[in-house]
């Protein structure tokens, strides 16, 4: 399948596997048909350039939304352009500084802040009642220093995905996935002993460790950064305890291989060789294509989760302030974010629009029973951890991802790795 992706993105300079895996839903073929259904823009039609980073199931669903929009609108047409996931923000930044920005673009909430100087404040452009259309907690994530800089499309938390067939083979109850660290130990040890499969992997891409690490750190009652985001706060006992958990999974308990090669986990899970892994909402689309029976549960399986949390992020739509089609872009952003049923039913994300989230169309869909009801429950219980917004989130993402990858592959001791990562993060934040 990834070969088809390769063919679909010939300009990608990065390792194809990385790109495909990062998108998370590489399993779908024919995903990268980029052309919107533009009518050519004559006769008073405004044509918007819209940049996204969605591939696979996400890409299909977004294409569907854009097609719907274009069908319903004569005066505005959207031209969708998909950029490779790994290079998306680099390209967006270059386009926005080079004066050739799109009219509308996707932003993850923690990335909004670093583009804040170049984004149009939407306060005056959306109606007063607009805020009522969105789930409050997600709506709040798109405001920076009093400015509304984007409209939220979804929230996409992490869950624990597990292969029910492997559970059955190991003699475990496929309807009782582990809910605590102790239960994870029992399940994973049983799978390791009874089958030839790998039991558990905490990040199937093996390069986004920081996501769930932050959530688990919060779940232990600890902090990831200090209150004003100027220092690392994870270098103490809680962080080291978590680092030991990562170390033990691959180096002591034999639940997984001590190998942090990118995307190894997602390949293994999709081919039915891995029993449990932690991944985001988007996994629904990819797993529906697989032949094995799977389920999803809350990922509160790290040690010491007294106030359980899971990682979450939101896709939002923002308008670069250099656009000369701002009114049309805002209208399109409102329409897409508030008519996002496909985004839930097909891409598997939790829509940010109240009307869509509460609709019977969504709640009677397969995805609701399979994953979204559980995600929705965690959202309502306040168990979502968003990553901190800093001037540049690379400052903390990279050191932590790198350190945990080395701890996982047995090249650094947990204490050494986490202490070094904390020092690097503090140094970067203050640099």
């Amino acid at each position, binding site marked *: 399948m990834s070969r088809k992706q390769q063919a679909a993105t010939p300009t990608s*300079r*990065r*390792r*194809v596997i990385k790109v495909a895996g990062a998108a998370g839903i590489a399993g779908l073929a024919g995903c990268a048909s980029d052309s919107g259904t533009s009518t050519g823009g004559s006769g008073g039609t405004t044509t918007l350039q819209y940049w996204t980073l969605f591939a696979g199931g996400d890409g299909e669903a977004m294409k569907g939304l854009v097609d719907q929009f274009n069908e319903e609108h004569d005066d505005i047409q959207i031209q969708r352009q998909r950029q490779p996931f790994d290079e998306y*923000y*680099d390209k967006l*930044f*270059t386009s*926005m*500084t080079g004066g050739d920005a799109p009219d509308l673009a996707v932003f993850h909430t923690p990335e909004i802040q*670093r583009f804040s*100087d*170049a984004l149009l404040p939407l306060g005056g452009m959306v109606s007063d009642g607009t805020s009522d259309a969105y789930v409050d907690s997600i709506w709040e994530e798109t405001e920076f220093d009093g400015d509304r800089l984007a409209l939220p499309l979804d929230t996409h938390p992490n869950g624990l995905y597990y292969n029910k067939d492997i559970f059955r083979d190991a003699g475990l109850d496929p309807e009782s996935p582990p809910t605590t660290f102790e239960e994870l130990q029992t399940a994973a040890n049983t799978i390791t002993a009874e089958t030839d499969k790998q039991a558990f992997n905490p990040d199937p891409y093996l390069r986004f460790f920081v996501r769930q690490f932050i959530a688990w750190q919060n779940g232990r009652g600890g902090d990831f950064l200090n209150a004003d985001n100027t220092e690392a706060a994870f270098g103490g006992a809680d962080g080291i305890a978590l680092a030991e958990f990562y170390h033990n999974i691959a180096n002591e308990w034999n639940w997984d291989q001590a*190998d*942090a*090669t990118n995307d*190894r986990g997602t390949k293994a899970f999709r081919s039915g060789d891995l029993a449990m892994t932690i991944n985001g909402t988007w996994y629904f689309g990819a797993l529906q294509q697989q032949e094995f029976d799977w389920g999803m549960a809350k990922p509160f399986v790290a040690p010491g989760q007294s106030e359980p949390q899971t990682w979450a992020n939101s896709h939002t739509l923002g308008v670069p302030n250099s656009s000369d089609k701002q009114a049309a872009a805002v209208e399109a952003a409102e329409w897409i974010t508030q008519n996002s049923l496909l985004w839930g039913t097909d891409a598997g994300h939790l829509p940010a629009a109240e009307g869509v989230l509460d609709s019977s169309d969504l709640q009677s869909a397969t995805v609701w029973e399979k994953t979204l009801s559980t995600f929705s429950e965690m959202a309502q219980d306040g168990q979502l951890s968003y990553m901190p917004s800093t001037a*540049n989130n*690379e*400052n903390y993402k990279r050191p932590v991802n*790198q*350190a945990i*990858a*080395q701890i996982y*592959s047995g*090249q*650094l001791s947990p204490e050494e790795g986490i202490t070094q990562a904390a020092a*690097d993060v503090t*140094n*970067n934040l203050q*640099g």
Partner: protein
Amino acid sequence: MATKDTGAILSRLPGVDAVDSEARDGMLFAIPYLLVFGVFLLYPLLKGLYMSLFDWNAFNPSQSEFILAENYVRMVQDPTFWKAVRATVFFVLLTVPTLVGLGLALALGVNQDIKGKRFLRTVFFSPYVLTVSVVSLMWAELYAPEYGPLNYYLEFFMSNPPAWLNSFTFAMPAVALATIWWTVGFNFVILLAARQGVPERLYEAARIDGASTWRAFRDITLPQMRSAIMFVTTVQLIASFQVFGQVYIMTNGGPGDSTQTLVMYLFRVAFRQQEFGYAAAIGYFLFVVLVAVSLINYRFVGGSDT
């Protein structure tokens, strides 16, 4: 415009008519190059220096804050920067001597009267025509831990072959090996041409005087090829100090920062951290290093015949 003025001034002086037309023609011929040089090299060079003195605001350049040498002070105090310097020097040490030595060995070998000379020449040079992305993706596949051919065959001899590109110890040597395979052809061609330029009569004279092969190599081949070797070494030093594409594609600077070279770090600082001023300062550091290394190279390797 400038040439006309200069020409007018020159023509007013007595007895310089010939110089006048020669100078004018010379300048006319130089203008196309000078334009390209000015727009694509000189201007960015000066602009970079200017930016390195600011806390550069990429979205609103006019709001950039002048901070004099603060970017340079920060650079000296930045541990990640020094890690990048060490990684770069390591890469240079791994590649440059091998590339020059191997290039020379291949050139001298192919210069012998052996069968299939033409074929070998093509084989040695052919990787050089590939682009960096093709080379990097191909070698990344070769090194792949589970399905890569290298580890597939190694598994016949050892139980747990390393995950090359994810290993602290092997990632940089692995990138260096790919680079050597890719670019040695360039040195090979230059050095082969230089070797073919050495007059055969020198070797004949040496043979008559009873010189050994080693002696002929040391006292004829090396001195005669000195300029070419110096040229190749300088070009290679510059290329290796500027390594980017291979590490960007094969390792993305990892594991840890072990393959994060200077240009890789510069790229991250500029486009991920959005700090163009600081990135420009790092670029200037590299520029100064390269000028210094080239000068030293001219001075010591180049010797008197340059």
